């Protein structure tokens, strides 16, 4: 049993079926002479499903499994949170506070960064980015956003 093969095989089959269904439901398939927008996706997703099944079967047959290794859960959560918050509030926060929040949350991904250290690092990054992107390149986002009442 090889868990990685089984999981990735299942994933490919799932994606393949999803695309197949979307192509079938929404798009004209056409014929080989005049291929509709659904033709190529249909073929590709079919191939993807076949590969997925083959990988999955190999995972069951394969004698030796492989280590999945450790997952830095803290980093996964913090980094996703950081980018999502940034995406949602960047316009309203403005460049300086937005980048500060982004870097601060990201920095906390690593347990080696203390809160204070993360705050200092993020402040430096935020000031640097405001100077480069705000004043230098002229990104159309205010340095301090409307959220702060300016």
């Amino acid at each position, binding site marked *: 049993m090889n868990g990685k093969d089984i999981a990735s095989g299942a994933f490919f089959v799932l994606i393949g079926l999803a695309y197949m269904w979307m192509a079938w439901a929404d798009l004209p398939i056409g014929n080989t002479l005049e291929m509709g927008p659904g033709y190529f996706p249909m073929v590709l997703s079919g191939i993807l499903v076949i590969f997925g099944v083959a990988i999955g079967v190999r995972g069951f047959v394969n004698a030796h499994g492989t280590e999945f290794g450790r997952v830095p859960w803290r*980093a996964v959560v913090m980094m996703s949170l950081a*980018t999502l918050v940034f995406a949602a509030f960047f316009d309203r926060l403005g460049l300086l506070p937005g980048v500060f929040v982004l870097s601060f949350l990201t920095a906390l991904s690593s347990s080696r960064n203390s809160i204070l250290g993360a705050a200092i690092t993020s402040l430096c990054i935020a000031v640097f980015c405001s100077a480069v992107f705000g004043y230098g390149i002229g990104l159309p986002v205010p340095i301090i956003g409307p959220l702060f009442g300016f």
Partner: protein
Amino acid sequence: MEFIDNLSLGFSVAMMPINLLYCFAGVLLGTLVGVLPGLGPLATMSMLLPLTFGLPPTSSLIMLSGIYYGSQYGGSTTAILINLPGEASSAVTALDGYQMARKGRAGPALAAAALSSFFAGTVATVLIALVAQPLTKLALKFGPAEYFSLMVVGLISSIALASGSLLKALAMICMGLLLGLTGTDIYTGLPRFTFGSAEMLDGIDFVAIAVGIYGTGEILRNLEHPLTGEATVAKVTNIWPSRNDLKRIVAPTLRGTVIGSLLGILPGGGALLSSFVAYNVEKKVSKRSEEFGKGAIEGVAAPESANNAGAQTSFIPMLSLGIPSNVVMALVIGAMIMQGIQPGPNVAVTNPDMFWALIVSMWIGNAMLVILNLPLVGMWVSFLRVPYGILFPAIVAFCCIGVYSVDNSSFSIYLVTISGLLGYVLVKLDCEPAPFVLGFILGPMLEEHLRRAMLVSGGDPLVFVTRPISAALLVIAAVTLYVVSRPNVAKTRESVFEEEGV
């Protein structure tokens, strides 16, 4: 004489102050990226892609290429000084380079790396200038069937570079192709796979995908094993190699250059493969093979010349055919498309000044690199002390702002989050992202040529095998697939990537 005319056109454009400036900025950033651990040329190029939109196309391409070959130089510096290859392609350099450094010969090792790289870069530049033009002329005769087959070759050979299972790499290609189709269908105007979102009608932003996979996804991987403390950096005393050293590096450099140039041209080749092959060849042919691994200067010169030559000749298929031979070239193609230049054989005809300036700038950039790297090595060494804990929040910040600035919308940043997580999970499942990214870039082009070829042939799929060039290309793809799937080749591939820690 056409060759001379072209080169002089290239020189006149590349020597313009603005282009010299961006060339310098590119190689400087590239060296920095190569030195900083955990930050590769791919992440940097995707981060800086949005910033290059405001530049003229020529300047932006010159800078992006400078980052790529500059990082090859920087990577070798860390490989030699702290046994930590900044770039995967410098991994073999560390074997002998670090041993030389431990014996107090860090200087000559760095000099051997820089000089052999410069020589290889010069040869590769001339080679690109010589080969790109005839290839372009050949490619102008290509019809849709040939293009389709050519892209199949490109996709299949990207597998040769991917580590791990062949089946997974093929599945990753299919998934990349499918994702690349997102957006409005060019023939019917119907939206495809957009989930009703208006933002996705123009397709998924390539920068967001690249930044997610190679920026945030890569950081997650690095955080699995927190980099331990400060590395001990070997002291650099005397830079200049002795006369005996110089004598010893001549032949390995020549051999490395030839190997690198050839492997770089092959689709799927590039710096990584070249350096590994060159080192092994050198070990076999050298009279001093017992010294390899213990500080043989040949073991530095050969892979360094090869990786630099390979990095540069991998531009040949990109420039002359519009086919990316590796993910870095895919990024350059992405940059071209965003600048409104349709990559392909027409580039040399429609934008000759850009085409030749880019080629000449590589040689100028290489000369800059020698100057940057040898006397200033002390400065680069100090960058080795930047802790990763400070580095990665900065990388994420640059990535997100860069992605935002593509079209000043937050939508792409959500894509970064998703593709970063997806990329990380896939790598955890031993699925290399490179074939996926290539598929994503080539998806729309592949489909367009397929549909056009079928229209032209009246719906006869045999068109791909009855047209000679197309048939030859498909044979190449089939042979590549067969060779890569052979058990003993598969095993060697595995060991290559294991040793290099990719």
